[in-house]
């Protein structure tokens, strides 16, 4: 399994070497495991938070009793409806106590996500995180949300912009809103950024997430640059983000178009395990993930009216795209194995 994967990875690396930027980094094969030293200050790597799971009872009765009390208080709040929901439907109480804890084992133990450059994400105020999209199912966006909450000192909530398809689906749509997502449209994006929220966007959309495995880590077209225009209008910085590892969780080797049409989905993926092994094929492969936040691109130097200038928007879009692509290649160059890191 690893042998062919590695030879294919070799191709990707050789592609990476064509790019002159950071060529010295990718050439250094001895430094195969990423360290905080790769990106400037190690202070940006906060120590992992103590896990919120209840402590074993031997540690004294107090901790588990506190956890029990907290859990009961949470339940009572939920049953009585005593919690606040913002206009977008974001339910912070549910996100912090149920949704994020549910994703945490996947984040820590299954994908063993390592975050880099977290200091590039501002502690307060609006910012726009732009990342590459991959993995057939949008687990990469969920992991980015966990990363920014757990590994960022300000424990920020990522407000994601999603496709309308997601909001049409039952359960998924309502959970997405409760988790803080909203429709990827100009008015919502600007409203969130103007309110000082951290907004996440995956401009490749379905082109990125549903691309075949052979195209992994090749950024697709970046829409029309609407996200850049929104950032320009609100004057928030753009933080490019590269996610490595998500391409390998469900390697999409085929696409059953008639079934996709039948379900109204953009694609019906065939992976080595799905649909061959049925529900078992839905278990993502345990790839090792890296999420790197690159240096923010400030937009304060621009006039809000520049958002209507196609050239400015196009140039900025391209700059963001290039930054993500280079960061991806650099991370890939330093990675030896898709599953071991």
């Amino acid at each position, binding site marked *: 399994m690893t042998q062919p994967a590695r030879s294919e990875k070799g191709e990707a690396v050789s592609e990476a070497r064509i790019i002159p930027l950071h060529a010295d980094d990718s050439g250094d094969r001895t430094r195969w495991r990423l360290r905080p030293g790769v990106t400037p200050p190690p202070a940006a790597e906060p120590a992992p938070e103590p896990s919120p799971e209840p402590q074993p009872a031997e540690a004294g*009765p107090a901790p588990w*009793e506190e956890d*029990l*009390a907290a859990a*009961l*208080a949470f*339940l*009572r709040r*939920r*049953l*009585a*409806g*005593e*919690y*606040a*929901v*913002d*206009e*977008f*439907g974001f*339910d912070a109480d549910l996100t912090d106590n149920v949704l994020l804890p549910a994703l945490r084992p996947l984040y820590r133990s299954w994908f063993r996500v390592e975050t880099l450059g977290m200091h590039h994400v501002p502690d307060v105020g609006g910012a726009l995180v732009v990342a590459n999209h991959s993995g057939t199912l949008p687990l990469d966006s969920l992991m980015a949300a966990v990363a920014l909450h757990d590994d960022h000192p300000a424990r920020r909530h990522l407000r994601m912009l999603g496709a*309308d398809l997601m*909001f*049409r*689906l*039952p*359960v998924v*749509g*309502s959970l997405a*809103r*409760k988790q803080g997502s*909203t*429709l990827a*449209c100009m*008015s*919502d994006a600007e*409203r969130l950024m103007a309110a000082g929220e951290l907004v996440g966007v995956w401009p490749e959309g379905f082109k990125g997430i549903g691309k075949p495995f052979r195209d992994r880590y090749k950024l697709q077209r970046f829409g029309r640059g609407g996200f850049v225009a929104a950032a320009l209008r609100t004057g928030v910085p753009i933080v490019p983000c590269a996610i490595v590892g998500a391409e390998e969780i469900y390697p999409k080797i085929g696409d059953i178009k008639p079934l996709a049409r039948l379900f109204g989905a953009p694609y019906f993926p065939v992976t080595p395990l799905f649909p061959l092994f049925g529900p078992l094929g839905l278990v993502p492969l345990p790839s090792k993930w890296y999420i790197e936040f690159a240096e923010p691109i400030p937009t304060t130097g621009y006039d809000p009216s520049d958002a209507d200038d196609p050239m400015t928007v196009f140039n900025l879009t391209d700059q963001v795209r290039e930054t993500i692509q280079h960061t991806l290649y650099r991370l890939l160059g330093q990675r030896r194995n898709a599953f071991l890191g």
Partner: protein
Amino acid sequence: MPAASARDPGVGPVPPSVVLVTGVSRFLGGHLAARLAANPAIQRVLGVDTVPPPRDLLRRMGRAEFVRADIRNPLISKVISSAAVDTVVHASLSANPGSAGGRTAMKEMNVIGTMQLLAACQKAPTVRRMVLKSTTAVYGSSPRDPALFDETMTPKDLPSGGYAKDAVEIEGYLRGFARRRPDVSVTTLRFSNFIGPRIDTVFTRYFALPAVPTVLGYDARVQLLHEEDALAVLERAASEEIPGVFNVAADGVLLLSQAIRRAGRIAVPVPSGAVGPVSRFFRSARLVDFSPEQMRLLNFGRVVDNRRLKEQFGFTPRWTSVQAFDDYVRGRALRPVVAPERFEAVERRVLAAARTLR
């Protein structure tokens, strides 16, 4: 958006002298007439409806005069010209086909009635202010909607029927009226769903059901407006000159599931396929008069931006959505199916048990 008035909007409050209010037999129209009648600066308040108001409402209306007339009938123009009406508040738009005597009658009343009323106003030289009670339903409700609608946005899918379609058509007629009579100041108020201890709407009946049907897998965001805020906005629009289109909705939202829990009801999720038959059952049982577009609202919800109301109209709703809902629950004395004290008791008992385990 009707570029309503040729006059300066900053003329300041010009109290109307003769006000005509349609739909006075219902809560909003009747109470608005009562409030206007209490204003000594206003000479006359005429209330029009097809049926007389209930006795307590009529008593409340004081010196306001009730005129039993059908706005679909051209006679309405005689009422307007003979009383020299200068301000018309059209508050008779009905959302419930059941109470209006069926969908056809409702559409007739809403659309044809408005056309007749506007035709009468267009011919009346005394009319200089027109206030329409519209609805945020004109924005539709779909998964492709932005989180918040502002007044300049149009729906992704035009409402295909029912009350929302009526409202869209009526707003269109009103824009036409504003073009033909540029001297009339036209105010369109798009209200969100009303709630409160006294008003009777589909929503107030819905949340009073002991088991509340919801759509399985969906949890709509619900934005409300307290009845008193609605009346205050209508009163202000009638007595001052503030032309334009305004979303009238409270701050904040609550989720449908949250509202049901706050009311102490039990949600019964119904698969989307069964929603149609279930809503038909509730309608035929005369429990809740649900129309199809209101069921769609339960899927996706709809939230509007009230910034223009606050900044241009100069009104900040006193109740947030949650406060308005709580006021409704208290005012109706809805007895929770499961009392919150029970949760607390269980919580205390479990914690006590945990202490003994230690």
